[in-house]
């Protein structure tokens, strides 16, 4: 139904009817379209021939509407704006008032200029060398890296607090039960046990270190007794008054 009317499109629009949709999409709005029209006419943006531009703009809008393409509302608003500027341009200008009177086109020119500079800025940004197009990230494969398990720090107070928590929960762990055994004894128990590794007997004597003095001897002795009591070691004396030997009841 619109074939005839499409033929009536202004020649200087140079748009085949079926390309109108594409054409519409090619513009980023009414300002973009206006800029196109201005540039095509080789007009100075600062001295727009409003009536000519308005005529072309309206023809374009008309053609699009005839084709029943959906037109963004902004295009219609701009059409109204252009019509208004055109009518104001037709009003006679008084010489005397010229200084105060603002050019009716001023606001439009400002907007066009503003838009144009960001349109240009967008092109500039698009032209910047960018990753994945002009340049690429580099990476080399990794050799075997040392295990990087960074260890958490622990404060002594955290440790004590944890213990306190256990103690207050565990009834069987009464204070006298634990406290009777001095830590030095328990430490020595561990030390003795680690001496008794290979299921071998060692002499009882060798557990003691003379340099530690009387206190050290006592600690070692208590530790040995405790180990016996806990059935962790066995003590063997082959003959009366003979050498005493000890070994772990369950060495590794």
């Amino acid at each position, binding site marked *: 139904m619109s074939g005839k009317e499409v033929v009536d499109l202004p020649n200087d629009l140079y748009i085949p009817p079926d390309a109108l949709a594409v054409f519409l999409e090619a513009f980023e709005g009414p300002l973009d379209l206006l800029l196109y029209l201005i540039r095509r006419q080789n007009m100075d943006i600062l001295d727009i021939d409003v009536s000519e531009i308005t005529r072309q703009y309206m023809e374009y809008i008309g053609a699009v509407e005839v084709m029943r393409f959906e037109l963004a509302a902004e295009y219609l608003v701009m059409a109204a704006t252009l019509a208004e500027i055109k009518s104001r341009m037709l009003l006679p200008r008084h010489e005397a008032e010229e200084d105060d009177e603002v050019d009716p086109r001023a606001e439009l020119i400002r907007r066009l200029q503003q838009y144009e500079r960001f349109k240009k800025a967008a092109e500039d940004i698009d032209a910047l060398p*960018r*990753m994945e197009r002009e340049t690429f990230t580099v990476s080399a494969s990794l050799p075997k890296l040392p295990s990087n398990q960074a260890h958490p720090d622990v404060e002594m107070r955290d440790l004590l607090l944890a213990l306190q928590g256990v103690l207050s929960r565990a009834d069987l762990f009464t204070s006298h039960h634990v406290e009777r055994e001095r830590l030095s004894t328990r430490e020595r128990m561990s030390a003795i046990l680690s001496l008794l590794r290979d299921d071998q007997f060692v002499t009882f004597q060798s557990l003691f270190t003379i340099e530690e003095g009387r206190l050290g001897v006592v600690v070692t002795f208590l530790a040995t007794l405790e180990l016996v009591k806990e059935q962790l070691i066995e003590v063997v004396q082959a003959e009366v008054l003979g050498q005493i030997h000890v070994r772990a009841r369950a060495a590794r």
Partner: protein
Amino acid sequence: MNEENLAKIQAIAEAALLAAGKPLTLDQLRELFAEDERPARQVMEHVMMLVGNACEGRGFELRKVASGYRLQIREEFAPWVSRLFEEKPQRYSRALLETLALIAYRQPITRGEIEDIRGVAVSSNIIRTLLEREWVRIVGHRDVPGRPAMYATTRQFLDYFNLSGLTELPPLSEIRDLEEIGREIEKNIQAEIEFDSTSAQPTGDNTSDQTFH
């Protein structure tokens, strides 16, 4: 700091940049070293110069971008290297690029302000894409009804476009203020000479566009 030591730091820095696959700051590079062997900032800066020089004539180069130093393929080899990748580099729509440009040059800016300048609505898709790419982020809300979000660009944006800062963006074209326009129109009409934008005086507009953080 002797030569040998410098060479070692240089090799380590190069290795780290290759391993990281992303920009590293001077301090991140320095922190690779234990405290007792950590190079001073000036030393590290010097080393980075050495790293850069050592790329001379090779397939890659050292670049300083917003997030730090980065080794990257030289632009001249992109035609060959890009054949490695099936996917063609993504193209961005004009609408997206214009929106991005407005955010880059006019940040912080609201969507409404972008729409005012572009003269059309900005689709939510564009904003979402920019946010997802982490090229822009919301830096606050304007204290007006509706409290619209204000957008600004990110370091990732700068990194992606090979910039070390917003000041490296191509300068905005000048815009002549209205009074000036009026005078010039008159002049043009009278002299009928072709107008070219020679006005040497700073417009003041440009500088204000360059304020960033």
